[in-house]
């Protein structure tokens, strides 16, 4: 599955420098050719931040878009069922560690809205970390 804005996210990560990216355009081209696919990055550079963000994006599309929307703006098709509404993850400024707690334990367990389910039993630790890396990458 090709997720269009992942390529843009990848470019942002590459441009963001060594703190968030490890892959250079040369490395990518060497392993994945001129047209870099998400699948290739995940397969060839599985331990890289870029691959983690891509895996996180897939997890997000599978589990989170229902309420948070395809772009994470809190406007998913089930958003209208919730009060308070689902968080706008693009605008969020919550620390990553706190977001991990929300994802794992759900909103109610940490005194937030009941609408956010606990994902700790559904997602592995790696998937949660990938998801957090993706959420950090879509913030504006």
């Amino acid at each position, binding site marked *: 599955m090709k997720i269009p804005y992942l390529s843009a996210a990848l470019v942002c990560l590459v441009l963001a420098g060594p703190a968030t990216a490890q892959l250079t355009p040369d490395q990518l081209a060497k392993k994945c050719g001129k047209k870099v696919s998400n699948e290739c990055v995940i397969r060839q550079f599985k331990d890289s931040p870029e691959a983690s963000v891509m895996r996180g994006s897939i997890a997000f599309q599978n*589990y989170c878009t229902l309420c948070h929307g395809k772009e994470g703006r809190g406007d998913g098709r089930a958003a209208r*069922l919730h009060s308070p509404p689902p968080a706008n993850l693009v605008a969020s400024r919550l620390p990553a560690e706190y977001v991990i707690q929300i994802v794992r334990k759900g909103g*109610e367990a940490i005194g937030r809205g*009941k*609408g956010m*389910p606990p994902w700790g039993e*559904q997602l592995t630790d790696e998937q949660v970390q990938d998801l957090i890396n993706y959420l950090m990458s879509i913030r504006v």
Partner: protein
Amino acid sequence: MRKLILLPLLFVALPLAAADYVVGQKNKEFSMKTIKVKVGDSVEFRNDDPFFHNIFSLSDIKSFDLGSYAQGQSRKVMFDKPGKVEVECSIHPNMKLVVEVEK
């Protein structure tokens, strides 16, 4: 006089005739794909899995969100309008159930 007393009782008793159904959630599936109920009936969604489920519906005739609940717990929904209600789980996107509510 006796009829006058019994008549109101009859109307009070009518809603009690509504049925309760139980739909389980096991192995990330509903225990059935479709269930037919009548207007006024209730469906109890019981979590038989060792992890959370979060049952909801966005259908126009009955939208609801039962929130997250753990194994052994259940949540009940009364269907008060006829039509088809598509029920899903927000944690397990492959779970689908159709409740056909008849008059």
